């Protein structure tokens, strides 16, 4: 068959079979028991490129992307403007179609880019070292928790309230089979510090805190980190939108031991949840316990500077069951994306984006909470997300607002931590005053 993805022609196949000494290539499958072969087939016609494109266009058209509405939905995945230059560079086929750079002499470009990525993540978080990426934020956090458990040999972990629910679930899954206890703190307001000190003990391997937290709250302080340090536990800071670090004090500067998180917001599209980008940064004393790949600088035979994968003895392909993690394929291209995003934005651009999101969120919060029926539930300092209560609106609110072209944020599951119909709203740098004002008007109308 002549198929664009199958370069060999029938005549080449025949020639090759002959060289091997076969009548027919199918003889190469004779090791497979006949009974198995007989079961293998199923119905699936081939389609040409155009047909496939059409089918996927139709499916895409059955979705309503945030770019077609005015969205206040964040809650762990963040809409941001993506510079036009970014995809052009990321999609260079030398990057896109390469494997992990195991052959450094023809992979200096990729290796340098990952080295730069590590440097940028370390700078952003204020940490000593960062690896070359993890699958996503939640798995990076789960691996950080495992690192803390392994290094400390202790059996308890405390998770402060306000951790992304996805991350909470992944921690549970990754530790379910282990003889350890994970305390998920109930969100008491205020009193984090008080409650934490009562729970902290010399059995605590680590304390996990999100910054800003899932509800947008800013609760991480050097004081809190000192308290954790004093107990002998490791502090693990989880960041879900590193754009914030354009403005916020980096956890490293406050004394965090491990800073991990989700870096989708650094230039990756929403893509219905993936692929995203986990990052993993640590104080240097945890270097040899870190999961994932690391790129190091070295020299070649002529003394010329160059880059290689290094400290591979931590990894599965060398250490097998004793490896620090099982991760092999990582999120290389997503790390490259973040590197290019940060290079394009620079310190000023990143701060502008961060400041715009904060400016918008504070404006929207103030305007929304002027509406009598709206309850402000974010009294603490918050960043670009906040919570409001929209009681009695319940079921009808979202559909009504969607009709008007708005995605009114994320409806928090009832009860925890807010007792009313609570919504989490995110305001990207893309939201304008007019959009927010219209949104408030419509919300007011809906609630009447």
């Amino acid at each position, binding site marked *: 068959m002549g*198929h664009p993805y199958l*370069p060999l022609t029938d005549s080449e196949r025949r020639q090759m079979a002959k060289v091997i000494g076969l009548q027919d290539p199918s003889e*190469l*499958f004779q090791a*497979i028991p006949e009974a198995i072969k007989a079961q*293998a087939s199923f119905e*699936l*016609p081939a389609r040409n490129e155009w047909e*496939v494109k059409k089918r*996927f*266009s139709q499916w895409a058209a059955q*979705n309503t*992307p*945030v770019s077609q509405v005015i969205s206040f*939905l964040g809650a762990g*995945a963040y*809409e941001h403007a993506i*510079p036009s230059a970014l995809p*052009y560079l990321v999609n260079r086929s*030398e*990057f896109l179609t390469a494997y*992990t*750079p*195991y052959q450094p*002499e*023809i992979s*200096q470009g990729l290796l340098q*880019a990952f080295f730069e990525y590590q440097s940028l993540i370390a700078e952003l978080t204020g940490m000593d070292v960062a690896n070359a*990426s993890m699958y*996503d934020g939640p798995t990076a956090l789960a691996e950080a928790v495992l690192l803390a458990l392994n290094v400390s040999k202790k059996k308890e972990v405390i998770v402060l309230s306000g951790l992304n629910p996805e991350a909470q*679930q992944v921690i549970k*899954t990754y530790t*379910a*089979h282990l003889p350890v206890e994970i305390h998920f703190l109930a969100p008491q307001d205020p009193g984090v510090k008080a409650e934490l000190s009562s729970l902290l003990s010399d059995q605590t391997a680590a304390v996990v805190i999100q910054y800003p937290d899932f509800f947008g709250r800013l609760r991480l302080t050097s004081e809190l980190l000192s308290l954790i340090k004093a107990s002998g536990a490791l502090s693990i800071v989880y960041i879900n939108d590193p754009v914030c670090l354009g*403005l916020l004090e980096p956890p490293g500067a406050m004394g965090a031991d491990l800073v991990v998180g989700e870096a989708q917001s650094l230039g990756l*599209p*929403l*893509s219905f949840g*993936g*692929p995203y980008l986990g990052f993993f940064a640590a104080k240097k004393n945890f270097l040899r316990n870190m999961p994932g790949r690391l790129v190091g*600088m070295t020299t*070649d035979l002529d003394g010329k500077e160059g880059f290689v994968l*290094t400290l591979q003895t931590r*990894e*599965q392909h060398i250490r*097998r*069951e004793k*490896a620090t993690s099982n*991760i092999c*394929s990582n999120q*290389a*291209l*997503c790390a490259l994306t973040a590197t*290019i995003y940060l*290079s394009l934005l620079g*310190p000023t*651009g*990143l701060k502008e984006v961060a400041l715009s999101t904060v400016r918008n969120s504070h404006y929207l919060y103030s305007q929304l909470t002027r509406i009598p029926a709206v309850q402000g539930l974010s009294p603490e300092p918050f960043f670009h997300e906040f919570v409001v209560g929209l009681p009695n609106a319940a079921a009808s609110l979202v559909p009504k607002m969607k009709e008007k072209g708005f995605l009114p944020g994320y409806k928090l599951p009832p009860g925890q931590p807010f007792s009313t119909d609570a919504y989490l709203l995110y305001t990207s*740098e*893309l939201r304008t005053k007019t959009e927010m004002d219209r949104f408030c008007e419509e919300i007011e109308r809906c609630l009447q």
Partner: protein
Amino acid sequence: MKKKAGPALLNQASVPGRRGYLPPVSDLPPTPEEELIPSSFRRTAPLNLPELSEMDVTRHFTQLSMRSFGVDQGFYPLGSCTMKYNPKLLEDLPTFPGFRDLHPLQDEADIQGALRLIYEAEKIFSAITGMDAFTLQPAAGAHGELTGLLIMKAALRDQGELARDTILIPDSAHGTNPASAALAGFKVQKIPSSAAGIIEPDDLKPYLSPQVAGLMLTNPNTLGLFEEKILTITQMIHDIGGQVYYDGANLNAIMGWARPGDMGFDLVHLNLHKTFATPHGGGGPGSGPLGVKAHLAPYLPVPRVISTPGGFKWSDDAPRTIGKVKGFWGHFAVVIKALAYIYCLGFDGLKQASSDAVLAANYLQTLLKEDYNLPYDRYCMHEFVLSGLKDNPAAIRTLDLAKGLLDYGIHPPTVYFPLIVPEALMIEPTESVTLDLLDSFVAIMKELASQAKTKPEELKEAPHSTPVRRLNEAQAARHPVLKW
């Protein structure tokens, strides 16, 4: 003056005040920062990111790309990695706004197309592998393994069988298999391969104890050999109450010819970035969907997509689920690509792809064994492993051969893996080859074999045409410099 030097590091190229992108900014009056965020939370030290213009960034990364090498640049017979050609159609599809700008937490009404896509992908992966249910959540092959092993663990816990704490893994297996087993809380027991390079039931027998939770296997195995006794092997594991896990990294050898489910496997992960032509991206992102037989389906991660008369829905209704292994629903954009690839080929095309991949590997094996040691001399499947040069007076190592290939613009095969073959050169041409390409590769390999005798010193110093020469890896590990 360095001629054509590589690009300086981003921070070295930075100049204060330069801008690469002006983001859209809030059009609100500029409330001062301190009124929004208390000073205790704001940065004290300036953020030291590079400051570059768009041109600087473009040239920097373009020049980095020019110092990299992908499948589009040339032949890439990297064993175990299935470096097939990545059709360009695949790159277009995830950029449709209806996919690219879709938030993972939107209402079901707004994501019907996406849910449909997941549903169809799960169905088709099941058909290809002979499994009953699939999850798309795992981010890569190793993650699929972990997910599968956590499922096995959860099932054992439900059965009160936690004493089964050992996973059997052949000595030829990929490192992720034992690492994943350990991460899921299992002990690892290595199983020796036979002289024929496969698992012999008799060799397996001694390891069958009540502690065995299961066996992990890839078939064809990492030597590229089909495990002929597979039905006996899976039966033996089942007989002692264990589960059999299929590492799908080598599925490209058998698509349309045989299904892991029919071989008796209970769990299978796929590497969409290998078998289904999604690009490797310099190391990722991959995607490692996990399929299971019906008895393990209740343990799959949540949520699952279900089809109802009212449309597709998310379902969390799975009391025995292991929970989530990843944020949201997996590498959706990668799944789009894999599914499109499958549609383009159809069943016949998938089968032909495997047939071509196997044919190409055997063609190379036939021609290369004249000059290179072939430890397992029989028909291979999609890949085969050589063990250094036959006639090698100058003690040329596999590493030298690999570096020698770089000077011919060819990506070297996988070297020193699997661990059980000394001086291993693991060659996987995939179906993305022409006869010309294969013949020129053979000619180059023969040329290297002859250089090994005529100019061994030159080969030991290879590569000669790359931007850097051999790099000092020991120094990198001894004195780690991991950031600027």
